[in-house]
């Protein structure tokens, strides 16, 4: 019996060396180790053995089974691996083909700039104030120390609707409206919005554009605070190395008045074509609120003081993104707009 087992082992191991595909392996397992297989057949004769022989032969039978199973398992693993490799090969895709893009729109570059500026000032404790675009002569000019015969009020320069109503030429009327509404309380606002001037459109002029103005009124507001505020703004908006330069100027609603330059964003102050080799770019008008304006807004200029500043969002957007023609901002060519749909 032992011999028969040994023969079985030899024959099985030999047969297994021939196996090249999984089904054949399965067949051999059945043939040798299955319930009706050859090993079972041999072991049926165990009953005829003596009690001494039985454990010995049992041991031999187990060894034979183990040896055959080991080979089968090894082959099974091999086939499994081959199978997996084949499937992976078949499932291979071309990863260089393009993916499906998520639809992504762009906030208009002007709005993007306005949002950024709003966020900076809101972070500094300002509120955002708004007012009508069609405005009364009183709020747009008179209450801003621009009396009726002032040169800056020429019919040629403004879009009038009637003698007393016009498209606002600046967002400053929002400042006046805020002053009158605040009843002498301290003010810290910025006013972004559309304004209109009777300019012929060209690369740097548009009859419609955006302004952002700021107004701070409180007791003891100083011109040095204006400098500090604008420096902080410039550094947050354009980078921490930015410097500002205030130059004396004139506006009817501020005294003293200053034009404000920032370090050229293109050359970092080295001098280039954009800054006309000065290292500076003019971006803001500002000054201490004129006592007349405070008075008309309901604030006693002996008790309160304030500063105001204003900038063109269009100009900031053009500088920030290197846009060479203001008309691009209002043409809405999607090939232009799409460029702003990212951080």
């Amino acid at each position, binding site marked *: 019996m032992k011999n028969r087992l040994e023969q079985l082992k030899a024959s099985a191991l030999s047969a297994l060396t021939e196996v090249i595909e999984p089904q054949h392996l399965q067949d051999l397992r059945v043939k040798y180790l299955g319930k009706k297989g050859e090993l079972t057949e041999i072991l049926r004769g165990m009953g005829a053995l003596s009690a001494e022989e039985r454990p010995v032969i049992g041991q031999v039978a187990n060894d034979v089974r183990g040896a055959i199973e080991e080979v089968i398992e090894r082959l099974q693993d091999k086939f499994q691996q081959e199978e997996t490799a084949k499937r992976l090969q078949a499932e291979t895709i071309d990863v260089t*083909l*393009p993916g499906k893009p*998520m*639809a*992504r*729109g*762009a*906030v*208009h570059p*002007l*709005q993007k700039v306005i949002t950024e500026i709003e966020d900076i000032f*809101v*972070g500094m*404790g*300002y*509120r955002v104030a708004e007012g*009508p*675009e*069609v*405005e009364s002569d009183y709020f747009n000019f008179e209450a801003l120390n621009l009396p009726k*015969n002032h*040169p*800056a009020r020429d*019919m040629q320069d403004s*879009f*009038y*609707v009637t003698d007393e*109503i016009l498209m606002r030429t600046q967002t400053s009327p929002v400042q006046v409206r805020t002053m009158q509404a605040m009843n002498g309380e*301290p003010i*810290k606002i910025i006013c972004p919005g559309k304004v*209109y001037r009777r300019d*012929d459109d060209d690369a740097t002029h548009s*009859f*419609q554009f955006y302004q952002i103005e700021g107004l*701070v009124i*409180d*007791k*003891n*507001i*100083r*011109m*040095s*605070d204006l*400098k*500090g505020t604008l420096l*902080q703004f410039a550094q947050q908006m354009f980078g921490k190395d930015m410097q500002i330069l*205030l*130059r*004396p*100027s*004139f506006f009817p609603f501020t*005294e*003293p008045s200053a034009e404000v330059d920032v370090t050229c964003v293109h050359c970092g102050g080295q001098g280039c074509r954009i800054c006309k080799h000065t290292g500076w770019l003019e971006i803001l008008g500002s000054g*201490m609120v004129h006592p007349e304006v405070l008075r008309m807004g309901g604030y006693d200029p002996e008790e309160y*003081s304030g500063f105001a500043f204003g900038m063109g969002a269009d100009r900031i957007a053009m500088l920030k993104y290197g846009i060479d023609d203001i008309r691009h901002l209002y*043409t*809405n*060519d*999607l090939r232009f707009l799409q460029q702003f*749909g990212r951080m």
Partner: protein
Amino acid sequence: MKVSYQWLTDYIDLHDHTANQVADKIRDAGIEIDVVEDRNKGVNKVVVGYVESKEKHPDADKLNVCIVDAGLEEKLQIVCGAKNVDAGQKVPVALVGAVMPGGMEIKKAKLRGVASHGMICSAKELGLNDKLLPKELQEGILVLPQDTEIGTPIVDVLAINDHVLELDLTPNRSDCLSMLGVAYEVAAILGREVKLPQVQAEVSTNGEAAKDKVKVNITDKALCHHYTARYISGVKVSASPLWLQNRLMAAGVRPINNIVDITNYVMLEYGQPLHAFDADKLAGGQIDVRSARNGEVMVTLDDQERKLDPSMLLITDGEKPIAIAGVMGGANSEVTETTVNIVLESAKFDGGSVRKTSRHLGLRSEASIRFEKEVNPEAVIPAINRAAELMAALAGGAVAQGIVQAIVTEPQATVVKLSLAKVNRYLGTTLATDEIKAIFDRLQFAYDDQGESVLVTVPKRRGDITQDVDLIEEIARLYGYENIPTTLIEGSTTPGGFTKSQRIRRELRQLLTDNGIHEVISYSFTHPSQTEIFGSLTDGLRPVPLAMPMSEERSVLRTSIVPNLLDIATYNRNRKTDDVAIFEIANIYATQESELTTLPQEQPMLALLLTGHAQSAQWNQKPVAYDFYDLKGVLETVFTSLGVAEQIRFVADQPKGYHPGRSASIYLAAEAGDVLLGTIGQIHPELQREKDLGDTYVAELRLAPLYDAADFAITYKTLPRFPAVQRDIAVVVASDVPVGQLVEAAKEEAADLLEAIQVFDVFVGEKLGLDKKSVAISLVYRHAERTLTDEEVTEAHGKVVARLEQSFHAELRK
């Protein structure tokens, strides 16, 4: 204002400052300077020559052969092509070796066989602005006065070794529209003295008294504050001496004759415009300053007939107008070559009146520019004396004794009290009293020190300074803005933040752009025809037209944003961008009034447009065209995001401008009743054709009602603990039954047990019959506190089915 550096040195010592250094100092103190122009464009080796003879070139009709004495040992033979060259002239001669401003090098040359040793120059060749010269000198060579010395370098003769500073003045600094004003400014900056011209009031008098020759009366006292006249007899009108012409040219003023040049010169010097009348052309000796009469006309110096009206101020000779005050003189009293006697005017007219008149006539002159901004009342007399003196000196006139004048009000001194503490409180500086006083010294402002404050007497030349903050500005700019410290606001802190409407607009931009829709910004002005297309949201209101539009295209305020979006879509389509998804948040404008007396209504709107494809073709997907439901889905997402979805209804009531079968009005349920919130739909096919667009879907929403209704409060609902039961239902109904109504009915019947309902199929086919459609709806039932029994679900679902059968004649599909 063009300021000659050399001329400026008449009034202030600038030996240690170049023109560019002065310009930098002026800029730093607040006056813009556009350019500093070098008047010498590179002229060298050009000297004064005397043309001894001129002969025709033997072989060239248009050339002359000249023998020129240029002060050299040998006479020069020069071939010259200018028409106006002649023997006996003094001319500029470029010597051999000279390089001209244009880059041309002067060499010994042969012209048509004749040797030429140099070039006789035109003004242009010398780099001068020849537009200021008489026409004959523009076309030919520059002919110099006979008394010019042979051999003198031309740069000295023409005084072009000079720089011109072009000041770009703000309206408040009209004091710098004069050389003396600029001198005071530079003196304040550098801390130096101003040397005023030494004027002798009475010179070469012939014994006549001005008051016997001319009388002055101001009839219109509101518009003329001061009028002065002097009488100068026996002048010889001719060209001015070169030094005077050179200065005028440096300032950009055209030399004309000595009398006119003197008035211009003194205007440039003092900022006080003057006018010279030919005394013999005046009717009588009576000058009257009065308003024009209706229908009055006069011919001005530029030979234009001017129609006058009573808002304009005139100078008359008692009979006829002889000048429009402060704007331009009349041709009838013009100084010409034959003029012998002069009435000289120096006056202060009302600035506003001059400005209005000059605008009205479209006539701006160097004089009107100065009068508009109010001239210095203290310069009226010195200027007329200065001009009279020059007329005596340069035109051989005899100045009659005395000034004839009429004065309405004597100018009052402006005295401003300045608190010294306020200066530092206002600027954030720590200036000592002495530093502040030193600045007033530099400005030559007199002051009276009163301890805590100073009383400053502001000179009349600085009419812009009227109150203490104006003085603070003077201190700040002369102290230097760069020296003011940089501080942060002290005192109460304020919380920053956005209003509800501002937050909503930010949310909308984020939501829409995150979903592939681009933001656009278009113009608020439009063509009147564009206000008539989409009228539903401005029903009963009128568009607002501009009083003076720049074009018909942009003559009225828009009443809808949609036409702008259509134009943008067309623009992009014309550039091969066919797939367009855009939105704009902006105002529309309209009024209830037929004549606007109050501000019009401004309504904030959200407008959207989709056209072309939602998804463009790619290797793994077919293009999908936009349809109505894409846009409706966008709006529904917007409503959900603002927390108002439950209050919204879409009603197919054919709003104006849209495809009648593919459009709806949108209503928002509010406490006071339903509000028309907006419109949505495909635009009318005819409009699509007109705009050259494919199927285009637009929507426009009023934002104000959404600002009110939006609800940002999020309250968590417990997650369900008991199972849901889903039942589907498919019904066949008439094809015109709105599915929305089926859904509403189902919701009503299933009531609280219904958790969700969704339309998952709508099918139309021949099998059903063409007037029928099949609608499949999925309903999810759930109870929050227990598991629903099969009986409960069946009962609820049965009610839904029964309702659909009853209300819509629905047939249940099995």
